[in-house]
């Protein structure tokens, strides 16, 4: 059962990345300015050389040919060359991925610690004022653009991880709070409380098994949110990660680089969501 689920997820990820790659290759191919090549302006080139350059580009006009070639090169570890930075895309990604993963990872841990801390204490205390405070905090953060939080983190000299954590906190908090509140309202939890079980035992024996699959799904989505939040934070805080690279590629219209980052982001997001889904079904299987 689990093996079949894993195979289905694997196939879905593979198909989505292939389809996504084809779509981004198509968009890149038809983006205005794709055909323009500044090297043609080189005064040292004669008309035959210019014609040769044009002929080599004509082959790229066939979108399927263009995509198959890009795919073949990618399978050999060659993701092409960045137009704006003049370096191989593989090198750029290899240099920047660790920082982004570290930022996103720490931010996720911080954010989830705050989310679970506030949501759980709110459910235990059952004080409307405390619950209201959490709602106001998450509501206010939700109304501030991610890029402004990034700018404020620079002004206040706060680490980028905290800015990312603050960006994803309100999105996760709303769902988590509601999930936990619903789980605590279940009749078997009320019965456990009535029998005098302590809160820790109620949490781990009666609430977590009910809420965990959905919490894992929210956690999977929060990975995607954190990666999205990394773009403004890295761009505005001067952190040399993949988010900053994506922003530079967008500003410089470095389409090959952007296409590869798109595929990488799609892959990471899909892996996170599928991982959460598989883990959720495993938990459901155990609790059933």
């Amino acid at each position, binding site marked *: 059962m689990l093996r079949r689920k894993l195979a289905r997820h694997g196939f879905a990820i593979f198909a*989505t990345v292939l*389809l*996504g790659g084809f779509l981004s290759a198509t968009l890149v191919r038809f983006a205005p300015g794709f055909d323009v090549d500044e090297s043609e302006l080189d005064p040292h080139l004669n008309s035959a050389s210019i014609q040769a350059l044009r002929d080599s580009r004509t082959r790229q006009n066939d979108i399927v040919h263009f995509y198959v070639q890009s795919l073949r090169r990618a399978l050999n570890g060659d993701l092409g060359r960045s137009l704006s930075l003049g370096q191989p895309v593989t090198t750029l990604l290899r240099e920047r991925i660790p920082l982004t993963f570290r930022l996103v990872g720490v931010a996720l841990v911080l954010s989830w610690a705050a989310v679970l801390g506030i949501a759980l204490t709110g459910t235990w205390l059952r004080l409307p004022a405390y619950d209201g405070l959490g709602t106001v905090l998450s*509501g206010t953060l939700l*109304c501030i653009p991610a890029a402004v939080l990034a700018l404020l983190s620079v*002004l206040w000299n706060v680490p980028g991880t905290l800015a990312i954590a603050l960006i994803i906190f309100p999105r996760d908090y709303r769902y988590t709070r509601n999930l936990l509140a619903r789980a605590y309202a279940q009749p078997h939890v009320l019965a456990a409380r009535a029998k005098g079980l302590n809160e820790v035992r109620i949490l781990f024996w009666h609430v977590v098994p009910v809420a965990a699959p959905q919490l894992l799904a929210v956690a999977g989505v929060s990975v995607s949110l954190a990666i999205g*939040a990394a*773009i*403004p934070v890295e761009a505005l805080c001067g952190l040399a990660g993949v988010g900053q690279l*994506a922003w530079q590629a967008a500003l410089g219209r470095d389409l090959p680089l952007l296409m590869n980052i798109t595929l990488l982001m799609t892959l990471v997001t899909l892996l996170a969501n599928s991982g959460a889904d598989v883990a959720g079904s495993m938990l459901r299987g155990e609790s059933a």
Partner: protein
Amino acid sequence: MSFWRKLAAFVLVAALAFSLAANWLAPGGYAKQYREATDASPSRQHWLGTDEIGRDRFARVLYGTRISLLLAPAAALLSTLVAALVGGLAGYLGGMWARAAMTVTDLFLSLPWLFLLITIRALMPLNVSPLVSVLVTFLLLGMLGWTSAARVLCATSSSLRNSDFVRQARASGIRGARLFWIHVLPNLKPVLYAQFWISIPAFILSEANLGILGLGVAEPLPSWGSLLKELEGLVSVGEEPWKFVPLFLLVIVVTSFQLVLSNSDEVAA
């Protein structure tokens, strides 16, 4: 209607009214330069001071509010229409159509929203006139922001397809576009309204993010995004607090939308 929702609705109407009255409240316009008073502090002539090239910040806030408050709903309308068309029709037709539409939707949803925006924005020319940049920015929001709404609409439309009254209408001989138009679409209206209102604050925030990253509305046209870009030059928060007015206004407006929406969320759920 609770007190807070009434207050929020009042704030939204007031913000819109003030932005529409920008021509009278700030007759100098958003692009006029006061070269003798560049980067000036607030004064009687310039209530919020001037920016680094001497443009009146109050006028720019008013005109920027107008652009964000008028075009975000336009983009929300576009995205809701696309969602209704893709999600509503896919759910109504079912089978292969629903699977194909949901595959495309999943593909869009598999990318972080801000990343998708900057990627598609980068594929379009960046060096364009301010008016074109406004259109491109909000069209992009409208054309990309339909995916999550389409999922909800597909599920709703799919459940409607199998409902008793639609079966009865089908048995009475009503088919195709007429069945969709007369019996399915009116029942999607509550979800469509909710999606429309939910999209507005989301698009306002997205435009602000794009503007700060330099991929939004081009100068000299103001928008909340381009006005917030000014915060990049600040050294400390307390130094020039009047520069935070656009942020304050944005937070107030988005909060007001969230408060007004609290009922629409329940409808969507």
